[in-house]
């Protein structure tokens, strides 16, 4: 991997030749417009991902009258997360961990097969940067026009063009931030609240913060996020091997490069006409002909640019192409392009891990308990002697009803001979029919009375039964008869 330092490209940067400069200023990139296969794919990916992002909060999913009917919702005040048929309670956040691991391995798998497709097409940083560049181009014109505008003195044209660009950027940022808060509130209600101008300070603060960060990241930081901030960029090359699809320049075919006039012979020279189209379209501002570089997000726009040129000069496409490192190295010399080996130890390994993980997550989601029992022994007092000499222990019982309707539960104890269970709550409920509201945690203080046991503390087993389904959950606690001797 070689990396051109910007200092060598811009020798004027250092006012003191021979002196070391420790800071290389970012050079602004003006990506040129390009058409082609990968550009079309990129537009498509942008439309699909943005549509998902903006529209997903408005999808409905019926969960009955006791739970929200928004398909995707992170309900922070109630501490619940909903995703269609999946609901996650705070203590089940390990599902989120599993989903994140799944996403990470999925990224590794995709990377080992197709290279950095995530970076080039789906990463929000890429999508929004692409959108912002598109706005820039609509308002200010293409690469050269934008360059000229930047170099021209401030005047009416520059002010209105720049102003309009930034205004649209801020508006996009506002909509991005606005869509984000919909994931945390009932979207139609919040939308109505926004239209009435009646929104909480929290919502406003998040909208302001995210508007600013979108404006900053997609408007200014852009490729610097990928190069300097993103950890994936740094370790994704670790997933590459000779069979990974990468964007590459076929240097055996292209070199030696040089300008070419129509009708000139191609003998004794490479196919690269050094038109720098590939450099001009690059949103990362690199020259792909220098080989695979960390800054390359594999968007394929240079492939489109080069193919366009190759068509014009009447040479076959693919001087820059999506191909494996092996093919880029050997295909031109041998005249034979190897078939891409998608099935390799690395991909098999990732696929295996992915499917195992998918199986585990699916299994645990399918077998997720719909109610849980938690029992906490009272700390003070640990036990109470009753007038007949028997012993009573108190327990804080929590019943987690994850179902979308109120349920009645029966609670029982076993393991302590002669144990009797009672509960003290409003309306003197029956221990065989403790009601717990839908999608909520029920708290009950229950008492177990039993003759003093032989041992100071003996295990006691709590059983909770859903009266409707008959399903059970269990919890082990202790029964204390006296202070430890």
């Amino acid at each position, binding site marked *: 991997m070689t990396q051109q330092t910007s200092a060598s490209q811009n020798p004027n940067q250092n006012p003191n030749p021979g*002196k070391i400069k420790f800071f290389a200023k970012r050079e602004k990139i003006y990506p040129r417009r390009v058409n082609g296969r990968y550009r079309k794919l990129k537009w498509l990916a942008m439309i699909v991902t943005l549509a998902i992002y903006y529209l997903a909060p408005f999808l409905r999913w019926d969960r009955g009258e006791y739970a929200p009917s928004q398909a995707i919702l992170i309900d922070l005040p109630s501490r619940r997360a909903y995703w269609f048929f999946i609901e996650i309670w705070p203590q089940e956040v390990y599902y989120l961990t599993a989903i994140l691991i799944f996403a990470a391995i999925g990224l590794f798998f995709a990377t080992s097969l197709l290279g950095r497709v995530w970076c080039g097409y789906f990463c929000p940083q890429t999508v929004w940067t692409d959108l912002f560049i598109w706005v820039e181009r609509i308002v200010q014109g293409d690469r050269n026009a934008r360059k000229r505008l930047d170099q021209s003195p401030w005047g009416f044209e520059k002010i209105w063009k720049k102003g309009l660009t930034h205004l649209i950027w801020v508006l996009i940022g506002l909509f991005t931030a606005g869509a984000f808060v919909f994931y945390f509130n009932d979207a139609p209600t919040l939308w109505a609240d926004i239209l009435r101008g009646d929104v909480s300070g929290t919502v406003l603060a998040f909208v302001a913060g995210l508007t600013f960060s979108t404006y900053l990241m997609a408007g200014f930081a852009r490729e610097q996020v990928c190069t300097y901030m993103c950890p994936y960029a740094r370790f994704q090359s670790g997933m590459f091997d000779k069979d990974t699809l990468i964007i590459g320049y076929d240097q055996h075919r292209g070199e030696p490069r040089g300008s070419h006039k129509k009708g000139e012979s191609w003998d004794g020279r490479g196919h690269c006409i050094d038109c720098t189209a590939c450099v001009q379209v690059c949103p990362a501002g690199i020259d792909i002909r220098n080989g695979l570089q960390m800054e390359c997000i594999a968007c394929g726009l240079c492939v489109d640019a080069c193919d366009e040129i190759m068509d014009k000069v009447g040479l076959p496409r693919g001087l820059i192409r999506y191909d494996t490192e092996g093919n880029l190295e050997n295909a031109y010399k041998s005249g034979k392009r190897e078939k891409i080996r998608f099935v390799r130890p690395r991909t098999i390994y990732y696929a295996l891990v992915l499917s195992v993980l998918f199986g585990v997550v699916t299994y645990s989601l399918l077998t997720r308990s719909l109610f849980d029992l938690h029992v906490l022994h009272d700390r*003070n*007092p640990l036990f*109470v*002697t*009753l007038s*007949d000499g028997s012993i*009573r222990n108190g327990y804080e019982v929590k019943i987690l009803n994850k179902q979308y309707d109120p349920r009645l539960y029966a609670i029982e104890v076993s393991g302590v001979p002669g144990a009797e269970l009672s509960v003290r709550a*409003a309306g003197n409920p029956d221990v065989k029919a403790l009601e717990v509201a839908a999608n909520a945690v029920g708290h009950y203080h229950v008492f177990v009375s039993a003759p003093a046991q032989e041992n100071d503390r003996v295990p006691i087993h709590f059983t909770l039964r859903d009266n409707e389904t008959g399903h059970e959950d269990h919890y082990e606690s202790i029964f204390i008869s006296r*202070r430890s001797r």
Partner: protein
Amino acid sequence: MTHHNDDHKNEVDDITGVETTGHEWDGIKELNNPAPRWWLWIFYITVIWSIGYWVVYPAWPTISGATKGAIGWTQYEKLARDQAEIAAVQATYMARFAGADFDTIMNDPALYEFAVAGGRAVFKDNCATCHGTGGAGGPGYPNLNDDDWLWGGSIEAIYTTLLYGIRSTHDLTRQSQMPAFLADGLLKRDDVIKVVDYVLAANKEGTVDIDHPGRAIFKEQCVSCHGNDGRGLREFGAPNLMDAIWLYGVNASSVYKTVSQAHNREAVYQTVAQGRNSIMPHWEGRLEDHTIRQLAVYVHALGGGEESSVTDDTTNFSEPEPEPEPESGED
């Protein structure tokens, strides 16, 4: 070695082209690299911000206090505002709670929880000193978790005890007295030992031994309050002597342990000989009525609370049972 040399003021570092500060440590020279511009600007902005802060908020100490801010903000005022916010949330419950009788409260989950939560906090402030944070009491201080109540365990009875106290200075106080039989010369030492033996034996066996030498003394001196069967009378706040709970026992659960019988014997002896008359203060006039009612619900909820219908305050106690044993052979 450190030295400062003014001659080096304008020395320029060969490699970086940056001026040195003239500071040198063992040949290492400090370069005069200014702080980044963005950092400097943030610094200036915070300086300007602080001036605004001085104006708006209390900032500068004076001899008697501090400068008042332009908006009149103080921590006291903020505390008062926060407390008012909480009180406003409470008010909705409090209005319902204050207007509800015990029967309503005990059957309304929201009111019940409100009472228990409020009672728990007030208990720790006012009651825990004697009864313990968990209400488990100690020698001389009743355990409020158990089912043994001197004056009744219904919500109404607990409320009454809380209002007027026991042997308190309130006019309506609950009043009972355990005489100091030995100290006041009512009984001789031998008789005290006999009656203590009798009480402990009866308690241990669970039945009255009519042939016990202490039985006669018990009948003469104790039944008027503790009942013929020794099971106490709540009317007088007289404890049940047949149960496993000893207010002044060293360790209530040790009753079953032979080894600690001596301790109980000593404690019971002390009680009979010297009398025991501890005080529960009245809370009427010292706590708000709704607070006392919250406390009553909380204590009732600790586990020993009784149904109102079973023991309706002090009026509903068990009638003295007819003499179980034949009169003959006693006198």
